[in-house]
C-alpha cells in the first residue's frame, strides 16, 4: 500500500561541514495510520531523521534510504535547500524524486527562503495539499498517469478490434443471406412471369 508520511523542507548550509545547523523550514505530516499516542513520537522521529539525513547528504545529490519500514527520499539542491520525503516501501522512488523536485521549485519560487519568517511559512499550505495529492502516485505523477491511461487505451483498442472482427463475421453472414434473398426473389419474378405468359384465355 503506497503511502506518504511526511514532507519536510530543510535549509542546509553548504559551506563547511554541517554540524546540526540544518533548519527545518516547513514540514507536513500525515500520520493517520499510526495510533493516537504514537503520533507525536513518530513525528519527532521523522523530523530528526530527516535533519540527520540532510546533514549527511552532500549538495546536488538525491538519495533514497531504507529504514525499518520507511523509505526516506532526500534531495539536496545545490544552494542548500533540501527536501525529505518519508514514505513506505512500495512508493515508487521515481515519483518521489519528481515530487521532491516539484516541491522545491514551488517553494523557492514562493518565498525567498534564505530569510523568511515563521508567519509566512505557516501560511504556506501547499505542502499539505501536495502531500495529500501524492498519496496516490498513479494519478498524481504525470508519467505514471500517462502510462496507465495508455494501457487502458490499449486494452480498449484490443476489445475494439475483436468487436470489428465479430462485425466482419456478421457482415459475412449478412452477405450470404442477402445473396440468398436476391436469388429467391429472382426465382419469384421468373415464376410470376411464367404464370403470366402461358395459357392466356
Amino acid at each position, binding site marked *: 500500500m503506497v503511502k506518504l508520511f511526511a514532507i519536510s523542507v530543510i535549509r542546509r548550509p553548504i559551506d563547511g561541514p554541517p554540524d546540526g545547523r540544518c533548519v527545518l523550514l516547513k514540514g507536513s505530516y500525515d500520520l493517520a495510520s499510526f495510533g493516537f499516542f504514537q503520533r507525536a513520537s513518530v513525528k*519527532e*522521529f521523522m523530523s*530528526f*531523521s530527516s535533519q540527520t*539525513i540532510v546533514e*549527511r*547528504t*552532500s549538495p546536488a*545529490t*538525491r*538519495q*533514497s*534510504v*531504507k*529504514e*525499518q519500514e520507511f*523509505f*526516506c*527520499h532526500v534531495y539536496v539542491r545545490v544552494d542548500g535547500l533540501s527536501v525529505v520525503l518519508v514514505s513506505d*516501501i*512500495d*512508493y*515508487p*522512488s*521515481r515519483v518521489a*524524486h*519528481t515530487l521532491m523536485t516539484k516541491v522545491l521549485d514551488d517553494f523557492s519560487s514562493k518565498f525567498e527562503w534564505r530569510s523568511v519568517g515563521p508567519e509566512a511559512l505557516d501560511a504556506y499550505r501547499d505542502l499539505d495539499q501536495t502531500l495529500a495529492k501524492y498519496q496516490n502516485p*498513479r494519478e498524481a505523477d504525470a*508519467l*505514471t498517469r*500517462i*502510462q*496507465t491511461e*495508455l*494501457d487502458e487505451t*490499449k486494452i480498449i*483498442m*484490443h476489445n475494439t*478490434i475483436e468487436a*470489428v*472482427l465479430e462485425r*466482419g463475421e456478421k*457482415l*459475412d453472414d*449478412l*452477405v450470404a443471406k*442477402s*445473396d440468398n*434473398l*436476391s436469388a429467391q*426473389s429472382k426465382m*419469384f*419474378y421468373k*415464376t*410470376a*412471369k411464367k*404464370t*403470366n405468359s402461358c395459357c*392466356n*384465355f
Partner: protein
Amino acid sequence: MSVPRRRRGSSKSEDTEQLLPATKSTGNSSWSGVEDKENMGRDRTAEFQSALRSLQGRQQVRQLQPNPMTSANRMNRNLDQYTEFMRVAKSIGKNISKTYSKLEKLALLAKRKSLFEDKSVEIQELTFIIKEDINGLNQDIAKLQKISRGSQTVNGKHIQSHSSGVVVGLQSKLASMSTEFKNVLQIRTENLKEQRTRQDQFTQGPVTSSLPPSALTGFYKGSALVPEDSYSGGDISIDIGDNAGALRHRQSQLLAQDETESYLSSRADAMQSIESTIVELGGIFQQLATMVKEQEEVVQRIDSNIEDAEMNVEAAHTELLKYFRSVASNRWLMIKVFALLIFFFVIFVVFLG
C-alpha cells in the same frame, strides 16, 4: 613399362571405386547387398576382395610413392589430385548432411509456440553451432574450388567439368541450407515477438516493471548511510565517531551519484515505455482502419444484393398484378364464351328435337 601400365590399370579401377564413394558413401554397399539378395547365385566376394586389395594397395602406393617428375607418373599425380578432390568433396558432403540434420532440429525447436522459455538456451547454442558449421563449410568449399582450379590445367576436360559440377552442387546445397537457416531464424524472432505480446497481455503493463528496479536500487544503497537506530518508544540515540562519519560521507557521495543516475535512467525508461506504447497504439489504429475499409466492400456487396432483391420483388409484384387483372377481366370473356356455347347447344338440341 609394365610397371606404369599396371599402376594405370589399378588407378583406373581406383577411379571408379572413388566415384561411387564420393557421391554416396552408403549407397554402394546397400546396392550390392540388394543385388546379393536378388541374385542368390551371383557371388561378388571376389570383386569385394579385389576392391579391398586395390584400396589397400592405393594407400600403400601413396605412402611409398615419392614425388617424381616423369611423364609416366604425371597422370598418376593428376589422378591423385582428383582423388584428393573427391575425398575433400566427400567430407564436405558429409558435413553438409550433418549440418542439415542440426538445422532441422533447430527448426523443430523454433517452431514451438508454447509460453515456456526453456528451450531458448538450446536454440541459441544450436544457432551458434550451425553458424560456425556454415562458415567452416564455406571455407572448405572455397578450398575445394581452389584445388579444382589449380589442377584444371593438367587434368582432362571431363574431369574438369566433373569437378566444377561437384563444386557447384555443393555450393548450391550450402546456399539452400543458409536460406533455410535464415527462414528458421525469422520464424524464431516472430515466435519470440508473439510470446512477448502474449506475456504482456497476461501480466500487468510495463508500469509495474519499470518501478521496482528503482525501488530496489534505493533499498540496497540505503542501509549504508543511516546508522541503526535503537528506536524504543521514542528514545533515539545515535553514536557516530568523526572518522566513521567521514567515511560514510564519502560512501554517500558515490552512492548519491548512482542514485541520481538511476533516477534519471528510470525516468528515461518510463519515457521509452510510454513511447513504445504509443507507437503500438498507432499500429493498432492503423489495423483497425484497414479492417474497417475491407469490411466496407462487403457492406457494398450486401447493399447491391438487397437492391437486386427489391427490384426483382417489385417486378414480380407487377407481373402478379397483370395476371390478376387479366384473370379478373377474363371472367367476362369466359361468361360470354360459355353463353355462346350454351346458345349453340340449345340450337343443336332444338334442331334435333
